[in-house]
């Protein structure tokens, strides 16, 4: 999946400051008379508790029930379920191996950045240390993508009866919906199930509005992050290749809560590591729009992004 010719809009968390409705109003194709499709699979078995969204939209909504559809698929196609689990286990093993290398590489870059000073000797070391992290990121992303691709080619989920039946139903539902919304939640489950049912393929070249984990799933590389978790990993890491319809952007929902945005060294390392991608802080009420050409993004309503000099600036460029 590559960039499309329709609007892709990324938003921050919706609970406190919902702005989906306002965003939909700005999309010419959207109409209150026609249903809006929504994917809430990131909330797993709570997928159908979408009343706040429906009330916010004030219009007809088709919840695509992606999570529950895949539960039914798994129940009827054990072979597919086993294959998905095997892929998941393989990815998890690779992720564990990757974390060992990533911790050392990021540690080296952080230590060098912490030395301060501006000598050319130090600058060259910092540059190469960050380049090492970037190479490692690419290596890992390629290996994760290879596992995913191998799975798709071997299992061909869209051609399996159980999946194909749901895809046909979804095709009909989506044909009525000018806009697709994708909510947050568990990004791994959301991404996996959307991919298995090929939701974006069915929605084709029509506008997509996604927030939080939904926004992350649309990017080319899904980056997991939290600077201050109480336990567990704290190094931002590439989870896997995303659906790719939001090119040139790293989506960072709740960045003001999850990242130390006042720590210039951490911000600079983050931005340099993923450059030239736009590190978009998806804060409540903020909006990033991509209109389908190149990798240019438009940031509005308090949108901010992480810069390579360690600052966090308004807008998208």
């Amino acid at each position, binding site marked *: 999946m590559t960039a499309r010719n329709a609007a892709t809009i990324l938003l921050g*968390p919706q*609970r*406190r400051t919902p702005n989906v409705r306002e965003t939909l109003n700005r999309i010419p194709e959207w109409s209150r008379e026609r249903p809006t499709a929504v994917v809430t699979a*990131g909330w797993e*078995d*709570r997928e159908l*508790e979408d009343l706040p969204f429906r009330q916010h939209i004030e219009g007809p909504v088709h919840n695509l029930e992606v999570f529950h559809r895949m539960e039914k698929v798994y129940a009827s196609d054990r072979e597919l379920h086993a294959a998905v689990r095997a892929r998941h286990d393989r990815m998890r093993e690779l992720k564990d191996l990757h974390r060992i290398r990533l911790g050392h590489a990021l540690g080296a870059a952080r230590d060098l950045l912490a030395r301060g000073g501006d000598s050319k000797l130090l600058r060259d070391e910092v540059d190469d240390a960050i380049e090492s992290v970037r190479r490692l990121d690419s290596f890992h992303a390629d290996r994760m993508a290879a596992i995913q691709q191998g799975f798709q080619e071997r299992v061909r989920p869209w051609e399996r009866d159980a999946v194909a039946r749901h895809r046909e139903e979804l095709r009909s539902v989506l044909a009525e919906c000018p806009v697709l919304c994708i909510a*947050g*939640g*568990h*990004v*791994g489950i959301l991404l996996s199930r959307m991919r298995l049912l090929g939701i974006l393929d069915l929605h084709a070249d029509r506008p997509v509005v996604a927030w*939080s*984990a939904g926004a*992350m799933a649309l990017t080319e590389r899904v980056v*997991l992050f*939290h600077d201050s*978790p*109480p*336990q*567990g*990993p704290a190094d931002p890491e590439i*989870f896997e290749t995303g659906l790719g319809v939001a090119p040139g952007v790293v989506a960072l*929902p*709740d960045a003001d809560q999850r990242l130390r945005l006042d720590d210039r060294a951490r911000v600079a390392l983050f931005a340099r590591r993923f450059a030239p991608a736009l590190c978009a802080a998806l804060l409540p009420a903020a909006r990033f729009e991509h209109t389908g050409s190149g990798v240019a993004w438009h940031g509005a309503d308090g949108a901010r992004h992480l810069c390579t000099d360690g600052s966090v600036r308004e807008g998208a460029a």
Partner: protein
Amino acid sequence: MSQVVQALGPHPDPAAIEAFLAEGEFPRVEGRAVTFVWRGDADRVELVHWIHGLEQAQPFQRLAGTDLWFHVLDLPRRSRMEYKLAIHHGGRTTLERDPLNPHLAQDPFGANSVVRGDGYEPPEWAEFDDWARHGEMRRIAVDSRAFGERRVVDVYLPAYYRRTRRYPLLIAHDGPDYVQFASLVHVLDNLIHRHEIPPMIVAMTRATDRMQEYAADRRHSDFLVDELLPTLDAELPLVPDTAARGLLGASFGAVASLACAWHRPGVFGRLMLQSGSFVFTDIGDHGRGPIWDPVVEFVNAFRKTPGLPAERIHLSCGVYEGLIYYNRSLVPLLQDTGAEVRFLEARDGHNWENWRDHLRSGLTWLFPGPLWMTYE
């Protein structure tokens, strides 16, 4: 002489003292130096605290020619100390809270004044958060054969609780005290809301005779495993896995937790032991009175043959507690069992707010949530 009090100058008049007390907070914390002041008629004033290793009663000085008393304590960074003031006057002594200090810590015996050392902040994750989704409490009753009476247990159900899901279970000894004095429900609501722990069920037990039942009493272990757990399992959707079952307890409650895991291995895979009263003897008498006999007998036996009480064990203890030695001694022993062990110390004493402050590190380590993968 305290620098804080020195600022008053020599022979201050009552108005100057009044103004001095009105400006800023007392006790005054300046780095490690904490200045306590008290004003009034007295023959003697003392700071009474429960820091192991310091004289329990620290005398105040009177500022010459005034009724202002003061004492300067060297308190290391990030310390938290509970105290009272002993006022000796006319042959009588009263123990009272510091009237100048608004910070109080409640416990089952009342309340103490609290001084927050430089760098200590009460955890925001333990405060009520209106935005967090709130769980609900349900009460169940268990007719206990072990104790020959009906026992009431409060059960915390997380927000969005439903029977179609399965939940990890934590049994919290002295649960109502954890709720009242360590903000356990707010902590659960907040950590679940932030995805730092999974939605989980917490059974809050209480004892009729705590000092006996929690002192490694086999009836208590039988009650938990043979009576409470089956009742909860029948009424609530629990994950059927030892890694999703834990025990929490502080002080004697920690003894009860460890003793249950030892008496009935393979039932609870997670232990959270706070300031455990793990007194043991290698030689001689423990010297703590007969109520400790069964505890010492249990800990001595446990130290000889610990087995594998649980796969993951979180211990914490205040360095200002007399129990710190026993808890530190337990760490290598538990590690040798093959369990994953985490041990945390805080500059705090044997009290509920110390136990509150460690809830996040313990719960998130024993029951990690989907924080890394969830973006709301």
